[in-house]
């Protein structure tokens, strides 16, 4: 089981935001892991303990910033992630959600191929070389590279009866071995992607569902998604996920056949799962962790540069707007205001008004103001006047 966790580095402080033409310059800022992503890591950890497999973190952004940021994740949440991949390329910079989802979808596809290709290689080697050392050499190399699940080959005690071992000991035929490998490959195609509900910088929540769509297009099959997942479980065969999510005042229980994508809500608490891996889940696991994050460029992804970064983004960020015009402000116990409607008044040959009730009594000559104060038309903006205005 391939468990892919989507992560993002976001600006650490709102006070230190470097922008270039409306686009965040992540290279010039301190980044932290998007706080919402911790729920995705918890969900991935739950999945690994429940059914085994490999947890892979996938992120996009400047690798120099992100690799140190992701280092602690190898130890995160009990098990931590097993491998980390960073999509990093100047061509990917300035991406909106569409162009981000495009690149991340390509990353997911590459991860999938990276894990299914070794299974094909093993099947080919077995067909070609039969009961020979070449099979063991090939298997050991792929195993050491963390690319074969224990079910196929393992050098550790818990899995003594891997496909390769049984084949080499003469327990199964070439056809049986190839058949079993095909099943492993099929199970790898039932991967799962988890992400946070949104990021604290963009706050869109769009990338998750858009990656589900992007991967669907790349693989030519529908990948279902569920957003705002507060609870979910997976069946023992690792084929179906049932998620619970709130949509307005409705709670929806959605059943999805894998592969699928979930965005994990803040309310999520992992279900009970064994603290240690059970023997049967170990079959789905790999050798261990690769503690060095790997960088993939646009070329590695075989990406269409026209669909990446700023060039591939349908949206453009324009100039900003300051929030809220300053209203006409009245100061409590200070401002002079009209306490009632005052018709037009004459003062020293000039006409003033009319004045609305509540209007500020500024911009009128002092003598006129004094007259208004004496006759009670104007007064201090008191609590009583305030309450009268607030609830009129």
């Amino acid at each position, binding site marked *: 089981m391939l468990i892919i966790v989507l992560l993002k580095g976001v*600006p650490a402080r*709102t006070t230190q*935001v470097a922008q270039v033409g*409306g686009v*965040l310059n992540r290279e010039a800022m301190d980044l932290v892991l998007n706080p919402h992503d911790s729920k995705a890591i918890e969900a991935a950890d739950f999945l690994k303990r429940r059914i085994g497999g490999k947890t892979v973190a996938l992120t996009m952004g400047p690798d120099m910033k992100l690799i140190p940021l992701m280092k602690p994740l190898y130890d995160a949440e009990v098990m931590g992630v097993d491998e980390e991949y960073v999509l990093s390329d100047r061509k990917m910079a300035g991406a909106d*959600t*569409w162009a981000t989802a495009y690149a991340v979808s390509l990353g997911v596809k590459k991860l999938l191929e990276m894990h299914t290709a070794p299974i094909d290689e093993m099947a080919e080697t077995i067909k070609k070389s039969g009961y020979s050392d070449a099979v063991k050499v090939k298997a050991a190399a792929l195993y050491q590279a963390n690319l074969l699940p224990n079910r196929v080959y393992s050098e550790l005690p818990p899995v003594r009866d891997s496909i390769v071992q049984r084949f080499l000991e003469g327990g199964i035929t070439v056809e049986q071995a190839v058949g079993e490998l095909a099943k492993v490959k099929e199970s790898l195609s039932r991967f799962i992607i988890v992400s946070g509900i949104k990021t604290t*910088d963009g*706050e*869109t*929540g*769009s990338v998750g*569902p*858009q990656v589900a*769509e*992007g991967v669907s*297009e790349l693989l030519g099959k*529908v*990948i*279902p*998604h*569920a*957003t705002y997942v507060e609870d979910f479980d997976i069946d023992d065969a690792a084929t179906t996920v049932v998620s619970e*999510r*709130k*949509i*307005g*005042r*409705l*709670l*929806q*229980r*959605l*059943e*999805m056949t894998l592969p*699928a994508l979930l965005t994990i809500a803040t309310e999520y608490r992992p279900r009970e799962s064994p603290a240690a891996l059970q023997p049967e889940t170990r079959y789905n696991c790999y050798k261990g962790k690769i503690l060095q994050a790997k960088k993939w460029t646009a070329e590695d992804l075989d990406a269409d540069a026209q669909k990446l970064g700023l060039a591939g*983004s*349908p*949206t*453009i960020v*324009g100039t*900003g*707007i300051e*929030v*809220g015009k*300053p*209203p*006409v*402000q*009245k*100061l*409590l116990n200070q401002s002079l205001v009209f306490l009632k409607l005052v018709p037009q008044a004459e003062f020293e040959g000039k006409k003033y008004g009319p004045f609305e009730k509540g209007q500020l009594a500024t911009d009128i000559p002092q003598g006129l103001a004094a007259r208004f104060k004496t006759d009670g038309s104007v007064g201090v903006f008191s*609590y*009583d006047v*305030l*309450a*009268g*205005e*607030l*609830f009129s």
Partner: protein
Amino acid sequence: MTDEAKDVWVYLQHSKGNLTKDSLEALAAGRRVADKVNQKVVGILLGDGVESLAKQAIQYGADEILYVDSPLFRTYFNLRYIDAIFAMVKERRPYAFLFAANELGKDLAARIAYRAVTGLATDNVQLEVEDYTNPALGSFKDLLVQIRPDFGTRLARIYTPRHRPQMATVRPGNFTPLQPDPKRKGRLEKFEFEDRDYPAKVREVVELPPPELDLSGADVVISLGLGILKDGSGRPRDPREAYRLAEQLRDAIQRTYHLKAVIGASRALVYAEIKDLEGLISKVNQVGQTGTTVSPKLYFALGISGALQHRVGMLRSGKIVAVNTDPNAPIFKIAHYPIVDDLYEVLPKLIETVGGAGHGS
């Protein structure tokens, strides 16, 4: 560049035979945009038995309704809904397409935008139409300006110049539904949807109890911030005192003026998880970008400095009263009634004034 894409589409959510408030707001937003570009508002309706909803939508500002009416659409299932709506978009290619920025609207809009290869601006608080020139891309006439909270200290303008439809989700609480006009006439058009097999299904839908606190439906919101931890002279105060005062003000307003008043809170206060406020203040009280957007007739910001994330969640309130000891607090930029004073002094006076107002007149 002239725009061949026509019409402003609005996705209409409904519940128990009525269009939702969020959708009526999105419809008002759509009407505003359509009038600026002299185009029609087309309501997009999916459901089982939607005719009366279509009539409602026309009364509330739609010119046309494009609908799918089938038992397949009795419950919300994202993949099928996305397929149906995308089929409509592909066939007609509207100028703009608006959704309410709630769980359902965002769930649909994101995936549809990706499939349609177009931009999506989420959580818009305002929509305008402007000509737009970009040195690299050229000039565009009558472009939708999508205005949403930015990560920085301002609102951002988002454009989708080259792709259609220009897709946007509209943040609830920022547009006022239009007055229904029973005389308005409009055209209804049925859209045929071809179903297919999906690798997912809705197992169950359960209705949740109504929210403990209806922030968005209140006439008056009295919000507390971290400022309640100290009084004017900087001495620590028991925050429960401020909460009790806010309760007294709330009750006085309800009694005297028969308005629905509730207690809100800033994100800072909610996240501070203050022991003394346990059971009194929680996430349900939170006003702001990550909480609830409110637009009551009257808003009290008590001890709230007013970070942008808070302001965008309440700036459309009718009247804003802000009480803060710091004269430079950003909340004062948008307050109609700035009170630079100790809230522990101001609140009792307000309560007395409001409570007394009922007796005199």
